[in-house]
């Protein structure tokens, strides 16, 4: 290979990196503009109450089984692990306190968020993506209906409102899972376990988890809608949009969880 060929190759690498960076920046710009338009649409009339109600059922109510099941097993495993770990220091009595703290602050919202991301972000992206490729979104425009207001706002509102409720339910079930294992297998007395749980948890612990849940709900609905609206081509495009919606909402949930924890517990 001659000198100039080497140079060309290196230039190619730079071109590749440059193009990737430009694509990323363009994507961030598109997402920011989409978010801005969605937020603006939330506060401007009309409000589609019926649609918000429908989405509340789809996003919130129908997610209860998955969230409940995962919370139950998470609480149970947590109790078992803390008991075994604590046992090494003779600190196994701390199970109820750690379980309630871990569940309300961290695992409740994050696990509910990840489960709902898998269920709901995918469903939203697939539905809106299909509407996009079959021109149904264009049809909305020709029928004097703003697609953002009609499709995005109800999903955002329903997700932001239902995620804290789902998380509260999940928290309770998770604590119950820990309680069951502790009482059945680990020799705790039920009343003492519950008293320790209630005494230890503060409302700040619970609230921080619910605030996180609301943010996760926003991320899930936004990612589902954004990728759906930007899906291209036919079935393949919709499939890609669905995958991207789930992956990006999971990543954003975990990243924002760190940031939110830092903010909420900095004071």
């Amino acid at each position, binding site marked *: 290979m001659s000198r100039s060929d080497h140079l060309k190759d290196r230039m190619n690498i730079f071109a590749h990196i440059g193009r990737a960076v430009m694509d990323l920046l363009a994507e961030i710009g598109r997402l920011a503009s989409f978010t801005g338009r969605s937020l603006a649409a939330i506060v401007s009339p*009309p409000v589609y109450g019926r649609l918000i109600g429908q989405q509340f059922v789809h996003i919130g109510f129908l997610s209860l089984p998955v969230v409940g099941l995962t919370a139950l097993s998470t609480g149970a495993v947590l109790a078992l692990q803390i008991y075994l770990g604590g046992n090494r220091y003779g600190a196994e009595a701390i199970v109820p306190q750690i379980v309630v703290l871990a569940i309300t602050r961290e695992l409740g919202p994050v696990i509910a968020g990840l489960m709902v991301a898998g269920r709901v972000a995918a469903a939203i992206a697939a*539905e809106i993506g299909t*509407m996009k490729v*079959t*021109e*149904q979104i*264009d*049809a909305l*425009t*020709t*029928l*004097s*209906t*703003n697609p953002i207001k*009609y499709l995005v706002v109800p999903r955002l509102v329903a997700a932001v409102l239902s995620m804290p409720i789902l998380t509260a339910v999940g928290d309770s079930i998770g604590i119950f899972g820990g309680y069951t294992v502790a009482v059945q297998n680990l020799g705790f007395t039920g009343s003492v376990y519950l008293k320790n749980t209630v005494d230890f948890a503060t409302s700040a612990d619970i609230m921080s988890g619910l605030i996180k849940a609301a943010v996760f709900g926003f991320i899930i609905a936004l990612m589902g809608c954004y990728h759906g609206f930007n899906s291209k081509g036919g079935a393949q495009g919709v499939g890609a949009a669905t995958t991207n919606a789930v992956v990006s909402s999971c990543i954003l949930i975990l990243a924002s969880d760190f940031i939110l924890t830092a903010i909420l517990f900095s004071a």
Partner: protein
Amino acid sequence: MTAKIQLIGVKKRFGAKQVLDGVDLEIAPGTSLVIIGGSGTGKSVTIKSILGILAPDEGRILVDGEDVTHLRGRTREPLMRKFGMLFQGGALFDSLPVWENVAFGLIQGRGMARATAKDIAISKLSKVGLSEYVAYLSPAELSGGMQKRVGLARAIAADPEIIFFDEPTTGLDPIMADVINDLIVATVKDVGATALSITHDMASARKISDNIAMLYGGRIIWQGPTDQIDHSGNPYVDQFIHGRAEGPIKMAVRK
């Protein structure tokens, strides 16, 4: 008389591809114009630019003499009420029953009461030859021809001044295509609308149009009354209407 729709030097580029390269077009009120042209020549882009779904890079679009090229959002709403559109695949909302599809623009776009809108929807469905029974089905339960009819009923539900037809006969058998053509002619006359259609089905184009324009290379290369199409003296038009592989239009097969 002011043209109902007028396009002046409309240009639109997607990446490196100049799809529309200065389209000039005029449609008189109450007439039906059909734009013919091969696939990918920008017929859909032309309609979507007028509808405001796409923004042209250059040029102006006038509706009733008013420049609407850059109207967006709320200021565009009164304009959108003048329009009705039949999409190529029907584009029916599959989450809603047929009657709600037809009544959609009335309920969501104009805030009409659901009961009133439903009565109108059922009467519009009967205009396109569908019974009340169909009104309660979901779009997925309908055949292609029925979906087109529902799409047509939806397009005319709000008595629009201008109706757009995107490939109205594509994907239908010849008999159903002719039924749809008849329905288009009848409904457009009934509503008293101006119509703009795009198609590459010449039988349909001849039947539903007063005037025909041919789009090629991003421009209108011929325009005239429908009965003149066979005597256009334009080799591009002749090749297209007779569907010949040989001629001045070279298909980009070797891409």
